């Protein structure tokens, strides 16, 4: 089957539906530590262009001007921070002058309002680009499947199973880079595959451009050429054996120019370039180790168990996806499956395995668990789609199903059977996706029994904000634990937290931080000692409220005077 115009319509519908559902759900999800930094950065970066266009910035290319706006969060490339800032700048309902004190200094509005469309809240406007990127990724999974494996039934399963994944869905609701870089990884692979078939400069340039955008999103994308290069080498060898010419090298060559895209998009690198690039790389090379609980043990330095990424995959992805993907991989590996001129199966294997494989060496930090190899997931969904499609074809033959209506009904039933449990997992996980474990683990309580990481990024406190607003005395000081100052500022701006509640951490670290009327403890194994310090300071062990997911504690609140 070749792609027809209707497939573009289906892909657009998938993109639109996934984006809308994701952004609607995101309003219930708390602010993750890192996305608060990126929102802050986005606001600063877009203020640079705002001030440039309005003439407030006299020497925009000077080092002083650039450093003023771009020095914040220079450890990550700018693309999505810029998109978050731009989306916020264009779409938010503006109360920025009133909320002046909670904005970054360079982006503060003294009076009046930003001129915006005013369609979304500030948080939703910041998060919109990731949600749309998630929709785009699901649509790309559909289109690639149709192009490469030639079936709409399998393509729809691939797209739906990409959407219905608790962890991917969580990250798709945040203004952070992990879902976007997974989407761009897949898009670059897809462009490379198309370029190999097109044998033209146009496809090659698109590949290079997409890889540039991937580099401008997150550092780990730098290893993608390893997968594509290995595939090209494999393809060349295969063709050599068949006395055929080498595959088109232009897609790979164009990727060499990708750093120009990164450099062009990142004003921070326009001065003192070599030193700043070195610092950027050094930050990640020497990245601090974070804590991570895996089967009851807290890890925060190498060596990590080689199987940690696989273990996390097995207990977090929907079981239906794992089983059908495993079946699909086996079916794709069968020698009876004819490979195409571009060795698509080898490309899928290399591009899909590499993101997770780099974390199996036991040396790289495992601080972010599944989020660092989200790029593996669309490849698993393609395999799952293949398994379901083959099952459908076999059923048609075995049951002698004839007629397009009957075939359509059978296909719809198969798609539903594959989608419903995955959707149930995803729905159940929301809005605490990082605490959710799949049916194999026994849900969130099963994950707790197994001693798996409870959560990270401090986002779950949002579930307690209504309680805090209601119960804390006027002008109460609150110890926010792992919730960072940028998140606190954003909760204030979004009116999720009462504006007279003072962040006790701002009083001073470390001894005075428990000089507070109330304290939060975000439950993670390595945070247990925060509980102990609070007991000693407050003189009791009784929380006033505990937020839970299926009975599993996520956040406790203590009152100094219960």
């Amino acid at each position, binding site marked *: 089957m070749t792609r027809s115009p209707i497939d573009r319509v289906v892909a657009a519908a998938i993109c639109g539906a996934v984006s809308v559902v994701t952004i609607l759900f995101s309003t219930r999800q708390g602010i993750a530590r890192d996305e608060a930094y990126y929102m802050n950065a986005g606001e600063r970066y877009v203020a640079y262009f705002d001030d440039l266009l309005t003439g407030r910035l006299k020497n925009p290319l000077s080092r002083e001007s650039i450093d003023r706006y771009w020095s914040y969060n220079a450890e990550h490339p700018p693309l999505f921070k810029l998109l978050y800032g731009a989306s916020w700048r264009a779409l938010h309902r503006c109360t920025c002058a009133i909320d002046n004190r909670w904005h970054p200094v360079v982006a503060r509005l003294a009076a009046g309002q930003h001129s915006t469309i005013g369609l979304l809240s500030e948080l939703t406007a910041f998060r919109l680009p990731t949600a749309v990127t998630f929709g785009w990724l699901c649509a790309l999974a559909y289109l690639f499947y149709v192009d490469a494996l030639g079936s709409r039934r399998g393509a729809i399963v691939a797209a739906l199973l990409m959407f219905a994944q608790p962890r991917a869905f969580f990250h798709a609701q945040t203004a952070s880079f992990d879902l976007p870089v997974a989407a761009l990884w897949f898009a670059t692979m897809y462009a490379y595959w198309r370029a190999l078939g097109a044998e033209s400069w146009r496809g090659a340039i698109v590949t290079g451009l997409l890889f540039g955008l991937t580099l401008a999103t997150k550092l780990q994308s730098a290893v993608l050429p390893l997968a594509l290069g290995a595939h090209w080498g494999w393809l060349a060898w295969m063709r050599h054996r068949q006395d055929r010419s080498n595959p088109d090298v232009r897609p790979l060559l164009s990727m060499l120019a990708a750093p120009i895209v990164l450099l062009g998009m990142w004003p921070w690198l326009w001065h003192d370039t070599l030193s700043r690039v070195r610092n950027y790389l050094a930050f990640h090379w020497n990245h601090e180790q974070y804590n991570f609980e895996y089967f009851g043990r807290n890890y925060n330095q190498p060596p990590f168990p080689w199987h940690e990424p696989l273990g996390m995959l097995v207990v977090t992805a929907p079981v239906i996806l794992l089983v059908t993907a495993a079946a699909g991989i086996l079916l794709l590996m069968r020698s009876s499956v004819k490979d195409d001129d571009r060795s698509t199966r080898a490309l899928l294997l290399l591009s899909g395995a590499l993101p997770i494989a780099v974390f199996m060496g036991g040396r790289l930090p495992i601080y972010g668990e599944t989020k660092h190899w989200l790029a593996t997931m669309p490849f698993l969904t393609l395999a799952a789609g293949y398994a379901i499609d083959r099952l459908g074809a076999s059923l048609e033959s075995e049951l002698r199903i004839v007629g397009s209506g009957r075939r359509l009904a059978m296909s719809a039933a198969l798609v539903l059977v594959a989608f419903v449990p995955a959707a149930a997992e995803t729905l159940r996980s929301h809005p605490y996706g990082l605490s959710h474990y799949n049916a194999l683990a026994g849900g*969130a309580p099963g994950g707790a029994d197994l001693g798996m990481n409870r959560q990270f990024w401090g986002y779950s406190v949002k579930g307690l904000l209504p309680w805090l607003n209601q119960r804390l005395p006027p002008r109460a000081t609150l110890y926010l634990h792992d919730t960072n100052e940028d998140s606190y500022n954003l909760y204030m701006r979004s009116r999720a937290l009462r504006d007279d509640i003072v962040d006790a951490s701002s009083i001073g670290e470390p001894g005075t931080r428990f000089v507070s009327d109330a304290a939060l403890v975000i439950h993670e194994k390595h945070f*247990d000692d925060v509980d102990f310090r609070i007991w000693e300071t407050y003189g009791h062990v009784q929380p006033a409220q505990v937020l839970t997911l299926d009975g599993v504690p996520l956040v406790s609140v203590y009152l100094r005077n219960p």
Partner: protein
Amino acid sequence: MRSLRDYRARAGAAVLVLLATWETGVLISARRSAATEADWRAASDFVHRAASDGALIVFAPQWIDPVGRLWLGDRIAVKQVARMDDARYGEIWEISTRGASYAGVSGRTPAVQRRFGALLVRKFLQPGATVTWELTDRSRIQEIDFAPRHGIVVELGRLDDERRLRFDDVQLGTELQVFAGLADYRTRYDNRATALLSVMVDGREVTRGYAGNDSGWVPLPPASTVPGLHRVELLARVGDSHGPVHIDLCVAAEARSRVP
């Protein structure tokens, strides 16, 4: 005649449907099997009415502890949560769910057992020891193996470091029990050494034990003692080292008289 191969697709579809049903069912069951607010309220009311003052209240599995303290924290002192061990408690109340059991009562027969929805409340009785002395000076809660323990921290930073704690006129009973463990996971990650703790009564070693990064909260063999006033010394040294020495050795001790 048809072979099994002719039913392969139908079997595959059946497996898929079963898998989907099972996965959805497990998620629903996980939600429904969690203890509700009503379960906790009923269990809490029962324990509040039935437990003696000072009874030990524990939760299983350990991860429900914050929710347990939400409902019963008014009956649990800081010192109890960070206790050295359970020996002094004659009455232990266990509130558990998911079939879990607190290790300290595992295998014992409960004196009382009641179920409140997803929660099981059990009361256990044991001969509680009379504590004649405990190490409380300068002690505070430390994290040992990610659990709270009240104790004194002795720091050892070099291979030849030695720290001695001396306590005069200690009212000993018939038994001296000492526990030790390496405090603070950050320090444990940097440390590659093991601590050796010797316990002396009137200058004579009565027990000793080792504590390493992974050994958790280690009970030293209990020492039989002669009741009366004695001098107790705790001597901490580096017992073994394979690299940097960063030891925060947390020590707790109780002198007891056992009821015969």
